[in-house]
């Protein structure tokens, strides 16, 4: 574990003599939070670490799985909350853990609100509507629904992040967001259309713009994060890796299409009789194309993660994350295997591994004046994530 507090401007000699009387003095042994440095007022650098291990959370994952089964999944809100508590308590900033203060009941309330306020009416319109409504109206409502669905998904992304941040604290100070989920969702739709119109080439710029928006609207206490590209384009460094994805991934996609429409018919297989040759060649081709697309996406994924960290700052601190394509590959492949072989019940382990990957590679330079950061008056939304739960949006 890093011993970063001692590299700050305040050194041991600033200590009140009171605190030096008993053991231990000076540096704490490894693995124990170093409590030797009080805040000095001139600011601190920050260092991050994830101190949990995969197997720590396995017990919790098993408990949650069993409780989800006996409650026919109703336990999920409380289970998710416990996972968040566990993970944030092991996510440390300057050797002091973060804390998650949300409750399962808040998530459950959010679910009930969305259930009765949105899903039930929509469900009624779409199951009973077709029997009663005139034809034209049905088509119109389907169109509205398609647009609405895309809107709601993006709305949910924002709203669930806002909820999670408002329930995350460090040193007793809440994080929070104060922007508009509606504006975010509309921006995401606009960017989505632009990305489509440019055959995908606007995607990196769109993703960075959305990231910038999210962080500009994020606060730690009453202190706002900053986001932007000092002296450069927002998506600087992303277009090279994106070109790899576009060309190689696009090639794999076209290759698969050609295989299905041109090569497969020449293979002399009777398509009306399911045969192993048929099944294996189709699935093999799909798997091969998928694998190529995935591998081609890794450099872009890593560059995106690095760039997202670079554009964010708070006070004088800036961030970097040492994400690499091979690193992400290892993380995602193992996570995928864990989730698949546990029938989804191992998701908390995968989430913890992702946290470990990110927070053990995240570094910061520049000082943050924590003494001057006050608690924000806003306590955030009162209920959480109904939409995100309904749409099964990961988050964590």
């Amino acid at each position, binding site marked *: 574990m890093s011993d970063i507090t001692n590299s700050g401007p305040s050194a041991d000699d600033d*200590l*009140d003599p*009171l*605190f030096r*009387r*008993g*053991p*231990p003095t000076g540096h*704490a042994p490894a*693995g*124990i*939070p170093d*409590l030797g440095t*009080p*805040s000095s007022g001139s600011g601190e650098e920050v260092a991050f670490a994830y101190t949990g291990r995969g197997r720590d959370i396995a017990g919790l994952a098993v408990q949650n799985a069993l409780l*989800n*089964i*006996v*409650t*026919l*999944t*109703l*336990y*999920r809100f*409380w289970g998710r909350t416990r996972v968040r*508590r566990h993970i944030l*308590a092991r996510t440390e900033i300057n050797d*002091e*853990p973060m*804390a998650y203060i949300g409750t399962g009941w808040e998530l459950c309330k959010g*679910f009930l609100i969305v*259930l009765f306020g949105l*899903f*039930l009416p929509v*469900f009624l319109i779409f*199951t*009973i509507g*077709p*029997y*009663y*409504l005139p*034809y034209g109206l049905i088509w119109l409502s389907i169109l509205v629904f398609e647009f609405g669905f895309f809107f709601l998904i993006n709305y949910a992304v924002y709203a669930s992040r806002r909820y999670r941040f408002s329930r995350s604290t*460090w*040193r*007793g*100070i*809440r994080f929070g967001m104060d922007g508009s989920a509606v504006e975010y969702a509309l921006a995401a739709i606009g960017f989505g259309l632009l990305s489509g119109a440019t055959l995908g080439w606007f995607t990196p710029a769109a993703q960075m713009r959305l990231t910038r928006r999210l962080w500009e609207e994020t606060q730690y*206490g009453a202190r706002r994060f900053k986001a932007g590209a000092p002296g450069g384009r927002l998506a600087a460094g992303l277009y090279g890796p994106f070109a790899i994805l576009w060309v190689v991934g696009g090639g794999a996609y076209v290759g698969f299409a050609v295989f299905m429409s041109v090569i497969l018919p020449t293979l002399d297989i009777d398509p009306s009789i399911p045969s192993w040759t048929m099944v294996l060649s189709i699935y093999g081709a799909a798997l091969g194309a998928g694998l190529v697309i995935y591998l081609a996406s890794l450099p872009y994924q890593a560059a995106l993660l690095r760039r997202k960290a670079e554009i964010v700052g708070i006070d004088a601190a800036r961030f970097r994350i040492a994400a690499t394509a091979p690193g992400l590959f290892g993380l995602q492949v193992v996570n995928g295997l864990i989730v698949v072989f546990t*029938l*989804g019940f191992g998701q908390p382990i995968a989430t913890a591994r992702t946290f470990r990957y990110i927070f053990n590679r995240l570094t910061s330079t520049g000082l943050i004046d*924590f*003494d*001057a*950061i*006050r*608690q924000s008056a806003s306590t955030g939304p009162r209920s959480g994530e109904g939409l995100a*739960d*309904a*749409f*099964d949006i990961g988050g964590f």
Partner: protein
Amino acid sequence: MTASIDDPTGSQDDGAHESGAHEGGSHDDGSLLTGAFSDGRTARRHRVRLSVEGSGEGRKLHIAGDEASAVWPFRDIVLADLRRTGAAQLQRKGAMQRLSLAPEEADALRALAPDLLRKKISAGPIIGVASLVGVAFGVVAFALFGVPMLATQIARLTPVSVETRLGENSRAMIAIMTEPCRVPRMAQMEAERLAYMMGQTASARFRTRLEFVHADFANAFALPGGTIVVTDRLLAMLETSDQFAGVLAHETAHVARRHVMAAIVRQTGGAALIDLMLGGGSGAGQQMVALGAQLQSLRLGRKAEDEADALAIDYLVALGADPGGLAEFFDVIAEETGDDDLPFTALLQTHPTPSRRAEAARARVAALGKLPEPKLALSDKTWEALKSACAPEDDGEFGDGSEEDFDAYGDE
């Protein structure tokens, strides 16, 4: 300075200057009663000394630093986190204040107040989980048993006009998928007359109508609002007009008893309830519940079929037609599909097995004793006209007994 922002009572205000009077700081035995305190107002970390005052239920933890202090009653202190290393996080219930203890600090405090740093076992979570289990099984039980019972009632109470409108929309959807048969006017009228009389006999609240369509499956089904649809492939399977009358009587029973309406209410209501409770997701638990719901829905469907089979015979007898036609029709299906009478597959079927239905129909007819000589349901001329006007367009492929031809046999 005191830390009172999150404390509604402001009770810790008195803590700042008194703490020196309590036992605290470094002890003679070398233990360290200190910690790092966040007062919930700023992100500053305060080094504080700790001391315990009072006794029993009224004990309080005094937290005293140079610029922040607080007094926490023991009953309000929550152990937020206790790590394997021994490090601990305490917080005051309902407040943002936090006290971080290094392992040796936690040990020192434990010596003075062991209960503060022990994980408390409370009945709360057990009661909570038990309630969740209760709610979950309550919802499922209601969806599986309550909704079906209500569905029959709701269907009976649904205004005829509403069900008729529902039927219009169903017909519009059927019209997209099928092509109507060009049945000669006289034949159509005679068949409609039979359907009408059947409806009168059944005291159906709808006027029963008949539609013959080309479709790539053999089926006859009742739509909401009294329309009965018969496909060309089913017609081709029927050998006599008595068998046709049997099919018609069965469908008329569905119309009269509003089975279709009840099924719609049941399926939308019950399935919706369960789906919504499960909230998407695809875990093993969800799948099991969903499968159970499906089996229950099929079971209720088969119950409605049995009821319609029984009523059909009554109608046929009342009209003076041959009630044996229904059993013969089941024989035809049994022969074409081959019965699969294994108990497991029976669970998965939309209808009871045809050979059992034939058996049940024969038993019921036999129980009626000697019946007067039946009259023909339709004239031979009409029956021939119907069959030729509504013959499957691609005869060659039909009748090879393949599963596809019959997978939808029977009715809704």
